[in-house]
């Protein structure tokens, strides 16, 4: 999964940023970079809440979820002999 951030700004000036696809440690740095970049543009932010996503979600985002079932091959490719039709 690509590294991404989705920021929602509601009608009351509340901002919620969701970071996805970042490995351990890098996500907090990215959030701080965003806060600094916003500060340079005149937005002084105060963190109201910060929470990590559940481990299963993070593993899935990073493509580390080994428990996920492998995608089966299409039937045509599994046919014995490799012949068509």
């Amino acid at each position, binding site marked *: 999964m690509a590294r*991404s951030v989705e*920021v929602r700004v509601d009608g009351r000036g509340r901002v919620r940023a969701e*970071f996805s696809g970042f490995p351990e440690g890098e996500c907090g740095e990215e959030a701080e970079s*965003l*806060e600094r*970049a*916003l500060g340079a543009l005149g937005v002084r932010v105060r*963190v109201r809440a*910060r929470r*990590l996503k559940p481990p299963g979600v993070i593993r899935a985002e990073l493509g580390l979820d080994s428990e996920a079932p492998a995608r089966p091959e299409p039937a045509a490719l599994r046919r014995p002999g490799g012949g068509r039709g």
Partner: protein
Amino acid sequence: MSQITSYSAEIVLEHVAEGRPLEDDPGWRLLREAVEATAQEYRGRVGATIVDYFGRVRPCDISLITAAFPRGLGVVVDRATGRVAFLYDDYGGYGDVVRRQINRVTQNFLSLAVAHALRAMNYQVDVEEKAAEVGDEKTVVVRGVL
């Protein structure tokens, strides 16, 4: 790790607080853009003054004049602190209109700032506006992909 952070925000133009001219502040340019976008949305115009209930003219750094609030909503930047304040006289039942306009200017400004900040961090940015499920408030969603 991936995380979700919630912020409250206030507008403080740091360059102005350091003594630089208002026009040189990148935040001011975004703020101006936000007021102009709001004026377009309300089919209003941008000015540099407001009037109070008694018709007295008050100067401000930028103002939003609309049919819904013809006295005008002013934006004033404190040159000593960089803090941004809204200047208006809502006497006579204009409270709700003014509150909605202030919220919209603030939301437009924050959305523009987030999009700018993410572009500066090399994200590919996409902005979408979503109508609220309840009420007339909108949510602006800024997505960035590295």
